[in-house]
């Protein structure tokens, strides 16, 4: 359960037996070809995988260098890569005989994915969501309810994702016997980061095979946005052992020098959050800082422990782009390619647009387009109208 010094299980004793049970359940499941086939069948016949690898001609022209390809996780059922993991973990819960799942959610994307998988596989579902986020994301709250999930408001702390995660873990301890905690990103105590990577690596595996269908040549750069880091770890997974340059793009918010950002790598320090040792944004006393990003999905004070390791080892370069750069990139992608991506994903696009001209037109960059932007239209409207993004 360690990635260098990162990872581990920093949780109360009350969670330990549940983690052991999960570890055993997951170890069995991942060796079970019937389980694997069921997972793959659901991804294909229910969620619509494989998602395409789209050549972005217009974006390539704008970038003025490398050919840009988009891995289209936005075309998944429910609109983002989150469902890969939700389906995988929900099927694991069923295999482990659990009747109920709980999940945490920030903007509601993982909550919707979890509620979706729960509905599909006949599980009860409770989603913990900060009271502040419930107010801001009423559409997703309603979607979860339509899907039959209970949305539990969290009033503690800053009433956002961080606190919803704390509360989900607390609830898990209470109900661990019949309840599976379906975590939404590549974070949390071991074996969660491993599980999430396992169910997200399909992104990179498909990309690898789709690239081979196009050319024998390796891409010059693979880019993904990083909040908790599940789409990125899924995209990077099969490439980590290669020498292909990998770039994780964090939310620079109003600029990493302003204090309003979510740049865990650049500005974070070693610490423990949600059960694992990783890098995180904290005060010098060790109190966790609420991060800032225009993108709700990147607005997380920590990062998956494997990313912390990949940062430290230098295998993956982590860059940040600001709110403004991301929103501009979103607009460019939209008008050049007809694809309205999530603001999260737009961070990866923004980096690609900045970096493309460093490459020749014979080189390729691949962006993981982690989700669609329908959920962000209100944010975009208020930006266009007001100029303010808060």
């Amino acid at each position: 359960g360690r990635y260098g010094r990162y990872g581990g299980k920093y949780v109360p004793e009350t969670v330990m037996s549940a983690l052991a049970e999960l570890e055993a359940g997951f170890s069995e499941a991942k060796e079970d070809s019937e389980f694997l086939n069921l997972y793959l069948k659901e991804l294909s016949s229910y969620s619509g995988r494989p998602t395409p690898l789209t050549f972005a001609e217009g974006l390539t022209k704008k970038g003025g260098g490398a050919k840009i390809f988009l891995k289209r996780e936005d075309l998944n059922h429910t609109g983002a890569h989150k469902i890969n993991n939700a389906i995988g973990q929900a099927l694991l819960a069923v295999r482990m005989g659990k009747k109920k799942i709980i999940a945490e959610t920030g903007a509601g994307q993982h909550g919707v994915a979890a509620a979706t998988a729960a509905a599909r596989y006949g599980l009860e579902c409770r989603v913990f969501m900060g009271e502040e986020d419930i107010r801001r994301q009423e559409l997703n709250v309603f979607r979860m309810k339509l899907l039959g999930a209970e949305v539990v408001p969290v009033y503690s702390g800053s009433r956002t994702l961080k606190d919803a995660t704390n509360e989900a873990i607390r609830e898990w301890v209470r109900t661990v016997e019949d309840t599976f905690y379906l975590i939404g990103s590549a974070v949390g105590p071991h074996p969660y980061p491993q599980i999430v990577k396992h169910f997200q690596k399909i992104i990179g595996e498909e990309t690898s095979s789709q690239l081979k269908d196009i050319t024998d040549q390796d891409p010059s750069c693979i880019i993904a946005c990083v909040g908790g880091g599940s789409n990125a770890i899924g995209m990077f997974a099969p490439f980590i052992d290669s020498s292909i340059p990998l770039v994780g793009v964090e939310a620079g918010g109003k600029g990493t020098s302003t204090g309003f950002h979510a740049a865990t790598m650049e500005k974070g320090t070693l610490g423990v959050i949600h059960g694992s040792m990783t890098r995180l944004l904290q005060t010098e006393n060790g109190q966790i800082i609420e991060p800032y990003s225009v993108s709700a999905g990147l607005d997380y004070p920590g990062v998956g422990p494997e990313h912390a390791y990949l940062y430290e080892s230098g295998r993956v370069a982590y860059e940040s782009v600001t709110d403004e750069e991301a929103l501009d990139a979103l607009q460019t992608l939209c008008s050049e390619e007809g694809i309205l991506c999530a603001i999260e994903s737009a961070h990866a696009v923004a980096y690609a647009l900045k970096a493309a001209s460093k490459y020749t037109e014979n080189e390729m960059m691949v962006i993981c387009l982690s989700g669609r932007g329908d959920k962000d239209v209100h944010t975009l409207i208020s930006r266009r109208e007001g100029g303010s993004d808060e």
Partner: protein
Amino acid sequence: MNNSRWKRFSNKNSFRFVPYMMGCDPDRETSIEIALALQEGGAEAIELGVPYSDPLADGPVIQRASQRCLENDVSLTDVLELAGAMRERGVSVPVIIFTYYNLLLQLGENRFFELAEKNGIDGVLVPDLPFEESAGLKKSCRDRDMAFISLVAPTTREERLKEIAQDADGFLYCISSMGVTGKRAAFAGNVKSFLANAQEQSRVPVLVGFGISSSSQAMQFAGVSDGYIVGSAIVEKIEALLPRFSQEQEREGAIREFKYFINQLVPAQPEKECNHAAENTADDIKAVSAGKTD
């Protein structure tokens, strides 16, 4: 372990009462008075909590106390220094610092132990550092004659419980039921056999905690454990007394009311404490009753 305070704790034959208090809640001076009241009320040791932004193991009462203290920028260092002040003012029972791991990590292990030794800390409890992750810290504690307090839960498996219990220092913290800290009506179904088993395996006293908010609840476990821990009920009482603590002319009455509350939590108290309580005005007693229904 040569720590004389732990020896005293260990050699006691009573059903030990170990209260939890949040350090500097509501402020340093009141915390010292609270600690003295706890000791006077019969505490055999004191768990001294450190406020944290993300207290994963705690219920709403202790979360709120954390929030209050963080608004005053109370740090781990502040709480360690509070312990030193408590010692100076006469707290003589073991003091266990109760901190989430991230706070300790940021302060640094060396600096932490330096301050802990200087301020008379006897033990360390890190609720989010399970057995597997704690070997290093436990060794550092032992090197300094401090107890690293281990926890076991009703779900802790046999083999693991044995391993933890046989390696425990100070006391073995047995979690009475699943979930976070905070009062509750019922405990885990297997709690008594779990405690009996822990007692059999443990080389140190076995204390039961999580959710105990009355002496009668605690007494259920008298036969199968060596003591009990009360946390949220105390912190909640302090919360209820906050308005009075903050007014000079009310402080003394508030402390008196707090002492009375502690007396109720402790089953077998010396006669004089009861007399002391009887000195309270009728109004005070009414306020106490109201507080208890919270």
